């Protein structure tokens, strides 16, 4: 039994079904990636796990407890943190305020929050230099660091990362992914959604490939990297 399990999860926006019965199982300490083209249902799946979207049917269990009917803010308290696509930092709040909000569940324990901030500044020294700056004035890469750092402030057991490489220069992408690896080594389980399959398959131990709301392939990253379908569709290797 994995730490985070999705059983026959179906999600619909009105009459349009986006996720058509998927099963995922993520074990404690793993990095797992969810690959797929635009519209495959990756972001929708993450939003369902974090409670932003309600399921049409199916169950999501975390630590053997069903969480699919819990409101989003409770799920955070449980130890699942979702770093949304497009960073979504609070632009008119300072870096420090953004981090404090990440630790909202610890808002009555200022010591804990401060220690959390120091940890994040250690991980991303550039955020420390800019702690009093408004988040909206940061560069794209710094905003992504802030989004991840803010997510870590809740001490999650599972980190849901949605497209952390989006719109970033390759050198920054490498830096961010290096940090994700480090976070994982500290015991955080990571579920990563990525368009950049090449780097995602290098980082993750296992992967699921989604196509129009269904899991069409799954396995270890090594296997999937060798799979001709994956090579053709996601790695851009011709004639494979």
């Amino acid at each position, binding site marked *: 039994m994995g730490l985070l399990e999705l059983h026959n999860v179906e999600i619909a926006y009105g009459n349009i079904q986006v996720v058509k019965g998927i099963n995922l199982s993520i074990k404690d300490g793993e990095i797992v990636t969810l690959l797929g083209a635009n519209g495959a249902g990756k972001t929708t799946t993450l939003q369902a796990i*974090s*409670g*932003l979207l309600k399921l049409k049917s199916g169950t999501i269990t975390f630590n053997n407890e069903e969480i699919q009917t819990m*409101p*989003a*803010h409770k799920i*955070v*308290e449980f130890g699942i*943190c*979702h770093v*949304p696509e497009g960073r*979504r930092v*609070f*632009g*008119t*709040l300072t870096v420090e*305020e953004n981090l*404090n*909000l*990440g630790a*909202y*569940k610890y*808002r009555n324990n200022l010591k804990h929050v401060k220690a959390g901030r120091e940890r994040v500044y250690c991980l991303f020294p550039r955020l420390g230099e800019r702690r009093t700056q408004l988040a909206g004035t940061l560069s794209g890469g710094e905003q992504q660091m802030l989004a991840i750092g*803010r997510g870590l402030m*809740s001490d999650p057991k599972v980190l849901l990362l949605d497209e952390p490489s989006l719109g970033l220069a390759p050198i920054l992408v490498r830096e961010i992914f290096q940090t994700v690896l480090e976070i994982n080594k500290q015991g955080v389980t990571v579920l990563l959604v990525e368009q950049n399959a090449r780097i995602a398959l290098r980082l993750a131990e296992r992967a699921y490939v989604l196509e129009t709301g269904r899991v069409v392939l799954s396995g270890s990253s090594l296997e999937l990297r060798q799979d001709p379908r994956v090579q053709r569709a996601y790695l851009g290797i011709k004639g494979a």
Partner: protein
Amino acid sequence: MVLFIEQLVNGLTVGAVYSLVALGYTMVYGVMRMINFAHGDFFMIGSYLGFTLISSAFLGRTIPLWVALTIMVLFSMGGVGAIGIIVERAAYRPLRKTSRLTAVVSAIGVSIFLQNAVMLIWGPRYRAYPSWSVPDVTWQVGGIYINLMQVLILSISIGLMVALYFFVQRTTVGAAIRATAIDHDTARLMGIDVDQIIRLIFLIGPALGAAAGVLLGLYYRQIHFTVGWTYGLKAFTAAIMGGIGNIPGAMAGGLLLGILEMLGAGYISSAWKDVFVFFILILLLIFRPTGLLGERIAEKV
């Protein structure tokens, strides 16, 4: 010059009251993108609750003024804050996922309901705060007259505004309010209970409006169940002036509007003072709908 300064003081006095009411509009708009057209009625109910308390045997003339005033303001803030939370739960929350127009229509319904409820409870006639509510003490400072009531209004409303500013800018819950104003979903991902933040807004906004209601009741003494519309619209103008959604903007907008109104009343005609205010509202909506502070500076709350 004396007239100018006197009208300036008068303007600041009513303006501070407009600011308090404007904050309710601006905070609700900031978090829910909705104009709460029932907000003026929270103000009105506040002035009725204060009136009831001071004309009751409970708050007789024997209690010192500052104690009586504190009890009145807190009582009506608490009462109206509770009504605000009930109104949000009953009339706005069920409609949150529908179009914004639906919520506005619901707000107008709430307004009509509250006005009629007050009419049934307190009667359709004008009611008046007792003349002994605040002693008629006047000081002469450098040729201009300032009375005790003006000093009380200014100090209480500025005190409340400073408290609100610190709460919103310096506390984590305040940051959560600002974050919710920016992006509900991301706020939820932080573990913020957005429903709870909205409840909080519907406690604070109406409570500030109620304090304003008590203060203006004491100042003008006459109250009526329809005053919510006039003062509500004036405060709405102040909120637009400061850029709706912007907390410091609403404070500045209220003061500015009060000053403009009183200068107009002093130099042109006091019978026309409401006309000036609504003329300003029309000009703003046409030429500067984002407010005088503009969009760029306007921090959304």
